[in-house]
């Protein structure tokens, strides 16, 4: 199949949507399809061979954050040219409701269009204000994909349309079998030792770091050798300042880590803790921890419960409850068998999130969009779905 994918945000800046687009494109290429990705990028930026630059992106405040996007007559001309030259069987745009390349591509497109919605924009004021314009964009979309149940709910409630829920993928091979950091995770025996992992912005309340801190501070004096490994953006002094002086040498802060080090960091912990208090629309980090083969302890949020298969593939604790978290941590650190059981179930769960599997589900949506455009049903073989 000839597939054209449009990414609204510049690859110069890392981000969830950009990573998703790159992983999807590579998975589709791996399945033998022809893929071209259009994205804003500086002229001299190093790009993967399948990415076509649509020119420089300009920073623009949108929906509470700054998005680097390309929009305007020059971008429109480039989008048109790319679509004409590409002669795609299907066009796949991401986040088409922000004023971006994706929206331009939808307006220029004639054939089947598939759209993926990433964010769960609960503030719908922007949406309802521009309802007329958005109507025209939405009408040209043939099939919609939502990456989370929350994003799907927004579709149904605010844009009266359904969407197929296909989760974010994870490249399992990038996480499984990676060597942990030197000297980690160390000993873990009943009553002593063990390493807890946390990845994310520890200053952001929604990430729930204070809950993990409270549990760690209560647990560490009773459990010799218990260590905490923290990675993510933030200031080291600020992090250590949150712990009593005698415990500081048992906390290790890695700062911001690269994708490769993220995998190593996840494998350096006995337990990965996700104490989030809300706002997590999917829980990407949990699938990554599962792919790394690390046992997960997570707050009982809807999204987390879905990823962890209701608690079969990881331990859930009542959201915000540091005491319950402490009890769960003690129990799991003491019981290697239980950890192994959860990890084994995690392997099964994460197989469904592996990119080649997720990409096949996306291909089926492409097939549905193409069929709905010309009314003929295609064979499994033709669509490469087999």
């Amino acid at each position, binding site marked *: 199949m000839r597939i054209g994918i449009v990414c609204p945000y510049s690859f110069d800046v890392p981000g969830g949507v950009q990573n998703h687009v790159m992983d999807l494109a590579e998975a589709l290429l791996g399945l033998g399809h022809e893929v071209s990705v259009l994205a804003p990028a500086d002229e001299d930026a190093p790009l993967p061979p399948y990415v076509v630059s649509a020119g420089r992106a300009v920073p623009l405040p949108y929906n509470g954050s700054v998005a680097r996007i390309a929009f305007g007559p020059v971008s429109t001309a480039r989008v048109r040219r790319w679509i004409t030259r590409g002669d795609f069987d299907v066009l796949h745009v991401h986040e088409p409701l922000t004023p971006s390349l994706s929206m331009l591509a939808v307006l220029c497109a004639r054939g089947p269009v598939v759209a993926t919605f990433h964010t769960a924009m609960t503030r719908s004021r922007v949406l309802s204000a521009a309802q007329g314009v958005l109507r025209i964009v*939405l*009408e040209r979309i*043939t*099939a*919609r994909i939502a990456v989370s149940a929350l994003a799907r709910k927004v579709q149904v409630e605010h844009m*009266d*349309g*359904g*969407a*197929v829920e296909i989760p974010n993928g994870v490249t399992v091979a990038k996480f499984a079998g990676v060597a942990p950091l030197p000297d980690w995770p160390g000993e873990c025996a009943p009553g002593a030792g063990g390493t807890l992992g946390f990845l994310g912005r520890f200053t952001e309340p929604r990430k729930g770091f204070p809950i993990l801190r409270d549990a760690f501070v209560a647990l560490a004096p009773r459990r010799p050798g218990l260590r905490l490994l923290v990675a993510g953006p933030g200031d080291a002094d600020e992090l250590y300042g949150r712990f009593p002086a005698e415990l500081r040498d048992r906390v290790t802060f890695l700062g911001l880590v690269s994708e490769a080090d993220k995998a190593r960091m996840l494998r350096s912990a006995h337990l990965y803790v996700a104490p989030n208090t809300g706002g997590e629309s999917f829980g990407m980090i949990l699938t990554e921890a599962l792919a790394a083969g690390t046992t997960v302890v997570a707050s009982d949020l809807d999204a987390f419960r879905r990823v962890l298969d209701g608690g079969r593939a990881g331990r859930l604790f009542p959201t915000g409850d540091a005491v319950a978290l402490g009890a769960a941590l003690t129990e799991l650190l003491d019981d290697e068998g239980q950890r192994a059981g959860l990890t084994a179930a995690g392997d099964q769960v994460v197989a469904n999130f592996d990119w080649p599997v997720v990409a096949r589900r996306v291909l*089926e*949506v492409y*097939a*549905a*969009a193409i*069929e*709905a*455009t*010309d*009314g*003929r*049903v295609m064979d*499994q073989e033709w669509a490469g779905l087999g």
Partner: protein
Amino acid sequence: MPGMWWVVGALLVLGLVSAYLTWTSGRVQRLQVRADSAARALDAHLLRRAAAAAVLAEQRYGVELYAAARIALDAAPEEREAAENDLTRQLRAVRLDPDDAACAAVIAASRRLALARQVHTDLVRDARSARSRPVVRLFRMGRGREWPRYFDIDDPTVVPRADVTTG
């Protein structure tokens, strides 16, 4: 000459209005055509699922599933939704082993049908909402074509159960 400006102004407005009407009429047509295509694709996927179910019924599971598949294949338009729902219920009641070829065909056909149904419902909704707009009704832009109909069936997705052996 103020009179001429009136004429120019009126012509300009007329031009804009007719451009808008042409564009709207094209939009309604396009949505209608797409809803019709989606209906044809949905029909094809319904037939495929019923055929896959009939093959599975012949190999095992027997009379009841076969009858449901036959009835779905032969149903008259007004009875079709009920017949398809009945087939979905029958398929959910049997054990589907994804490693068995006939079962895998039913599972795949059901998944593709679920997508076709979702896309069809969305496109019919778009087409109907465009047709029900006042300006479209006033100029009877959709005339000559029937209103696109929803095809109201339950979600046909079946859950494969690998942990049980097929009997």
